[in-house]
């Protein structure tokens, strides 16, 4: 269903009241086909970033964590015309994500799965680092699978140590505070 479906909105508001962040999986409902026309994608989730935008307006007290191909494609200005589910070309100006991050303090994102890393990699290392530095206090390390691909990639980027701490753990701890020392050295 759409992110701004009234039933979603009611659930998001409840999450906000309980200070529970919402991780959103987005997959767009239409992709440009070979004939240049939008083709319906039956396995869509959530709608587009416009539905996300409206959900964030309706739920200002709820933290939304963006995730998945439908979210990350909006890093580039040509999101609506790119036919790929995982766009691979250079990032063009005007990507809606930047505007949404700037407009909505309640928008965060996790860097998990192929879509997160793909979005960073398509712009090159310097651009990826710049994006992460710009939104350092709202990006979250996450994997959505096993392995160390994202850690190796992030460690290869020219990031400030403070930024790394934010992304790897401090931002998550701000969202979901844990008692000091409960889980030992892993969180120190």
């Amino acid at each position: 269903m759409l992110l701004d479906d009234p039933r979603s909105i009611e659930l998001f508001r409840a999450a906000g009241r309980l200070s529970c962040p919402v991780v959103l999986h987005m997959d767009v409902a239409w992709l440009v086909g070979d004939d240049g026309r939008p083709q319906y994608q039956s396995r869509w989730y959530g709608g587009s970033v416009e539905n996300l935008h409206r959900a964030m307006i309706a739920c200002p007290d709820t933290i939304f964590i963006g995730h998945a191909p439908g979210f990350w494609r909006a890093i580039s200005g040509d999101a609506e015309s790119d036919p790929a589910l995982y766009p691979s070309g250079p990032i063009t100006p005007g990507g809606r994500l930047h505007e949404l991050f700037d407009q909505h303090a309640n928008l965060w994102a996790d860097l998990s799965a192929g879509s997160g890393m793909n979005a960073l990699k398509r712009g090159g290392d310097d651009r990826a680092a710049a994006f992460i530095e710009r939104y350092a206090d709202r990006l979250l390390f996450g994997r959505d699978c096993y392995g160390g691909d994202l850690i190796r990639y992030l460690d290869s980027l020219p990031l400030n140590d403070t930024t790394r701490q934010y992304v790897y753990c401090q931002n998550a701890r701000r969202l979901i505070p844990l008692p000091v020392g409960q889980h030992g050295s892993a969180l120190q």
Partner: protein
Amino acid sequence: MIIDTHQHVFWHGRDDAGLIADMDEHGIDLAWLLTWEVPADEDAGEYHRVLNPANVRADGTHAGITLSDSLRARDRYPDRFIVGYCPNPRQPNAPGLFESAVKMHDVRLCSEWKFRIPFDDPRSIELFRAAGQYHAPVVLHLDMPWLPDDQGKLVFQPNWYGGTVANLRRALEACPDTVFIGHAPGFWREISGDADDAGQNYPDGPVTPGGRLFELFDSFSNLYADLSAGSGLNALKRDPDHAKQFLLRYQDRLLFGRDYYGGDLDSFLGTIDLPQEVAAKIHCENAQKLVPVSTNP
């Protein structure tokens, strides 16, 4: 000639012969029979007693007003009924179902759309586009998801349908080749500029300027409306002077319809001094343009 553009059959205690008798009593020549396909998870318990008992499912939910019922009525009265059908957009390949209905059963409308998803849900958009390809108008039922309480706080309404006029607008934009016919409380409250402050489903009081319906009608030539049911009549009766101006202004896009038996709407229209040509448009000519029917025997 009078065409009832919003009607159902085998409900409120009457069969198809009972509807014909009612139509004859009120001078109605033709009726559009619309389905209301009710998904099990949208079961409307309060409606069970007025619907066809033959459509109760094994799990106790009610399937609503079905295509089978409408087809049966049209088989018996082929010159009196046009059949509409709107599948649940959440069903796999709802557009394909609709297309089958057009080809197999000569369905002429994709109606009545009354579902608990936003109008601009991608599954609805795909269905609306299919309807547009077949020149089948879509009658939309709107019921608000939120209404203000006495303190102005918005309270969720669990029995909402379609969303708000904002969802309608996005559907109109996405489907320029589809004719949409607005209907029901969520649509008609927007005739008045103070719609956001009205806590009732059927707002009363004079119509104030700035109603969003005007901007929608003026911006989208594919938006029509039927005057059926309590909501349509209420939108007119709440301000009879305004009603006349409204009917004159949008005379090419308004449709006579009842969504029940009886003559309440026609009685009210009879109190408004409409020019004969305007009355003719509302009573039948607009409907004839949307769904042409041969009037020859």
